[in-house]
């Protein structure tokens, strides 16, 4: 139990982290992002823009110079992340040591697994457009003991999920079909069935139709209705209802801010 003293930082131009679609305003936030999202920062995160942010906004000119020299020396680039954590005084020495170990473990992974993990993290961060790009690249991976039918099936499944969240229903449907053909899992069949309910133009093939029993259909229909009901009662919908109950001036201001947020979220999704 303790209290950490924050550095006095007057940031006028925050640092934009594209993969996370957020702006950073302090050395603490920078440290947090580096530590919590290693996969998002392991490749090319420490670049000239970041060095300028450290130099100009966080008044960490010495660190920027150190990093610049380190990168120029072509030594382990992951060490640059560790240097930032050490200088920003947000994590303890033990935590930084654990982080260094984590980076080493990630680097030891099969390249295809490492990249899939990165794409999965992008998906978790609602960065569907960026995740799609990585998944598509992963489908081109040369086959080996790791990159097998099952691996491809998982990639197709995740790719389909990205498309579905981008409302690209036709592409999602095709990707789920491919995933099902490789993995044969019932959950994928359920996703395909649900897509047909969301988009009337999508039709299941005869082979798949035959696989869906009346019993399964009933369970999935119930689940689908349940999810729809949950969506109707979600916080987002409630916020909208509250907004529409306000007077016109406050409603307009609230709507503008909400629209701005949606736009930002949408841009990061595609």
């Amino acid at each position, binding site marked *: *139990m*303790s*209290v*950490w*003293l*924050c550095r*006095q930082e007057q940031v006028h131009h*925050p640092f934009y982290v594209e993969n996370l679609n*957020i*702006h*950073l*305003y*302090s050395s*603490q*936030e920078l440290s*947090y*992002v580096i530590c919590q999202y290693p996969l998002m920062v392991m490749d090319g995160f420490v670049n000239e823009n970041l060095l300028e942010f450290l130099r100009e906004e966080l008044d960490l000119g010495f660190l920027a110079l150190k990093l610049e020299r380190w990168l120029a020396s072509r030594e382990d680039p992951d060490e640059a992340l560790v240097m930032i954590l050490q200088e920003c*005084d*947000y994590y*303890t*020495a033990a935590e930084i040591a654990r982080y260094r170990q984590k980076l080493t473990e990630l680097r030891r992974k099969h390249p295809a697994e490492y990249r899939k993990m990165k794409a999965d993290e992008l998906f978790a961060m609602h960065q569907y457009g960026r995740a799609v790009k990585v998944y598509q690249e992963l489908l081109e991976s040369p086959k080996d003991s790791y990159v097998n039918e099952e691996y491809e099936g998982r990639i197709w499944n995740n790719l389909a999920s990205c498309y579905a969240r981008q409302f690209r229903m036709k592409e999602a449907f095709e990707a789920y079909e491919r995933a099902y053909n490789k993995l044969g899992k019932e959950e994928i069949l359920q996703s395909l069935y649900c897509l047909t309910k969301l988009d009337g133009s999508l039709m299941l093939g005869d082979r798949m139709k035959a696989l869906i029993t009346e019993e399964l259909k009933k369970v999935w229909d119930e689940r689908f209705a349940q999810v729809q009901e949950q969506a109707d009662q979600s916080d987002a919908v409630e916020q909208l209802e509250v907004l529409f109950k306000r007077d016109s001036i406050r409603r307009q201001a609230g709507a503008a801010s909400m629209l701005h947020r949606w736009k930002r979220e949408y841009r990061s999704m595609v």
Partner: protein
Amino acid sequence: MDGLIVGIDLCDEYTQINCAEEEKTWTIPSAICKNKSTDQWYVGEEAFAHTLTGDGIIVDKLLKLAAKGGTATLGEIRYEGKTLLKLFLEQALKLPKQEYHTGEIRQLVFTVRKVDTALMELLYGCAQELDIPREKVHIISHSESFIYYVLSQKKEIWNGTVGMFDLSEERLCYYEMRVQRGLKKTTVLAEYENLEEGFNLDILTTPSGARMADWILTSCGERMMQKTVYSSVFLTGKGFEKLDWAEDFMKLVCSKRRVYMEPSVFAKGAAYRAADMLHERTSYPFTMICDGRLKSTVSMNVLHRGQETSVLLASAGDNWYEQMSTMDVIPDGQNTVEFVVTPLDTKSKKTVSIPLEGFPKRLDRTMKVRIQVSFLDERTMDVKLKDQGFGEIFPSTGVQIRQEVML
């Protein structure tokens, strides 16, 4: 003169004005007179002259009037107390301005009997309306100006205890100043006591009244000054303008002690303070503990560069009304913020814990809390804690709590 460095002793019954390094002190009643037919204002003797001739209307006790937000009607126009106080100060400041042929105020220090937030805002407001920037205006207590006055004298006068009797129309007050030499810094403590035995100076006009006053003062002197060795004693206030009535009292105080008569201790002390503020390094490198200054040090234990360290928010001896600290901290594994309050007597050190009630529940170390500390008086700390969020990762909820802490 490049500009005036002014000390003003502002009381309800009188106002004294002194400029640094100048012997002359103006003493005028705290009253203002308005010409009945024109928009002219008078202070001091002029005010009484116009009132006596009947062409002016006078308002006195201006400080009290302004402090309680009162009004006065002069020539069918109602004036707020604050406006009258401003007009009075404007006229009063003309006295040194005309004497020293300069209109510029380089530094202005008001000294008042008791410093409180409302009075300070009032005086800062008046100064602002007189186009004197806030940074050039300071307000100190009589105790503090007493310290500044005494410390500006020769060292042998203040190397032990210094006593002072202030006898004015409204009160009889005893001040005492002590110097405590420490290893790091010397501390100067000043205390005062309003004596219940205060009397109206009108009684001095009759022989029996004067005898009674002498008897009262002597008994007060015996009570306050017993068992203490004084390096000097000061007598100030209108009551000591003449001393023929205080024969016994003078015998008492003058016994084996240096006794000084100084009618404008507070105004001169304020002027010394004003002059000192213009120097890069203070000529008074002491921790001063008196009315208007903090008697405790407030700090916080924080982690910095992996080490537990103490961050100072306010030090004993700081002027409480000028003291404001702001800092951002991140709690780790705790939902409270703790302050360490260390009085001069370090044995009674205490920890004050303020729970972050109503703050959102977040992951450890992802809530930046802005701590703002100021003081409502020398014994009350005003703490504001605000959720600053954690950038766009966890936006601020705007939750803020305020708590008063008794030191």
